[in-house]
């Protein structure tokens, strides 16, 4: 005989109604949840208030655990190294062959970087960070790439501000609690960063892919990106000031050039929250009109 199904309670009316009611609640609740999901589609940050409150409560726990286990990033990395082991030999042999050329490239880039930095140093004044805080946890089970920063509204952090690590751009703030904030990492599939190639300033968009990499899409069709190209924020459109390093191109694919972010948030101890960069206004349309009349 089959085991008695708990959903078929026999002839007891009371039990039958109870089970019926639980189905009604479940279906109604699922409908309500569907409504929540649909509203999230039109207002992605609408329901984040609750999540911010809870992040406020839990970020000290993660933060304490992080300082206790300071090297968790390395653990993940060494596990990852085992996954790569099969293809590593081939890649290393190839890398060795290419290393000479890369060394020369690196020399050129280093000089170029120094020159660019000098140029930038002449023009731009140093940016004062708003807050300096640790990234304490992330949404490891979800397909969205958020990290929780242990600084919030009480430190002056506000929505939209860029988060920069010592190696480069990490992401931007998307929701703020009192003592914690949620950072949308640049590798998230929904994040687009305007960048330019550091050598010649060829503009591109760096689009996250959700798997720890970025896709670089050139804005002009005549530009070809090579592996090894370094990309920095262009500052166009505001939010990110120009000159923050973002990614290094690794290989050319069908959809665009794949790139790896310069800042690895897994190994980051501290990140700085910077004020939103206000792009200089474009030339007023009236001037263009006058120029045409002339």
């Amino acid at each position, binding site marked *: 005989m*089959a*085991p008695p*199904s*708990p*959903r078929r309670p026999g002839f007891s009316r009371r039990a039958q109604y109870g089970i019926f009611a*639980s*189905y009604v*609640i*479940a*279906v109604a*609740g*699922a409908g*309500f*949840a*569907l*409504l*929540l*999901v649909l509203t*999230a*589609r039109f207002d*992605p940050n609408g*329901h984040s208030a*609750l*999540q911010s409150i*809870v992040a406020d409560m*839990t970020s000290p*726990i*993660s*933060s304490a*655990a*992080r300082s206790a*286990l300071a090297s*968790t*990033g390395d653990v*993940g990395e060494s596990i990852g190294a085992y996954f790569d082991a099969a293809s590593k030999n081939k890649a290393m042999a190839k890398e060795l062959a290419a290393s000479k050329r890369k060394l020369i490239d690196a020399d050129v880039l280093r000089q170029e970087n120094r020159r660019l930095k000098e140029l930038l140093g002449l023009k731009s004044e140093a940016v004062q960070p708003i807050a300096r805080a640790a990234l304490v*946890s*992330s*949404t*490891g*089970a*979800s*397909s*969205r*790439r*958020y990290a929780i920063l242990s600084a919030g509204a009480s430190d002056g952090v506000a929505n939209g501000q860029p988060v920069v690590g010592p190696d480069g751009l990490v992401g931007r703030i998307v929701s703020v609690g009192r003592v914690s904030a949620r950072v949308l990492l640049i*590798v*998230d*599939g*929904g994040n687009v960063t305007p960048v330019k190639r550091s050598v010649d300033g060829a503009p591109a968009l760096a*689009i*996250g*892919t*959700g*798997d*720890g990499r970025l896709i670089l899409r050139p804005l002009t069709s005549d530009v070809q990106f090579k592996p090894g190209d370094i990309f920095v924020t262009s500052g166009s459109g505001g939010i990110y000031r120009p000159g923050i390093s973002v990614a290094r191109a690794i290989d050319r694919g069908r959809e665009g050039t794949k790139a790896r*972010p310069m800042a*690895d*948030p*897994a190994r*980051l101890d501290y990140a700085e929250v910077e004020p939103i960069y206000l792009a200089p206004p474009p030339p007023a349309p009236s001037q263009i009109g006058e120029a045409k009349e002339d």
Partner: protein
Amino acid sequence: MARGYEPRLNRVASRWALIGVPALSVMLGSMTVLIPQISVFPLLPPFGLLILLAWRMIVRDLWPVWAALPLGFFDDIFSGQPLGSAMLLWTLVFLVLDIFDRWMMWRDFRQDWVIAGTLVAVVLLVGLAIANSSGGNTSAVVLLPQIIVSILIFPLMVRLCARLDVLRWTL
């Protein structure tokens, strides 16, 4: 498999422990995302869902169908998915499992594993679609390692829940 529980102890188990231990274990599973690790791609299995499914497989009549709603809500707060995502998907999983219970009364563990693995994969993929609809843009290939890890770790979760099952009757 559903087992009949006749009190074999010389005392009555605490009502709170009977319901509280499973609920707490699922909530703790949902809270595993708080581990201090900044992951750049999804690899962490959805422990909340896995533990929920493990309980559902071990003790078939433990949860009423609506129990997935509050537990899913709790998961949504931490997971980074849009609010309502786990509430919706977990409830649907429970409804689907009820249908399976009618189809296949006799199931061994391997069949349970196949069913749970398929459901987890579907939940992760639909969760991706929901996340993408609210601003993300990630391809499904990225989820493959996470799905594989989740399926492989499921028997371990069943073991864990079996231990907890003994615990909740002796608390």
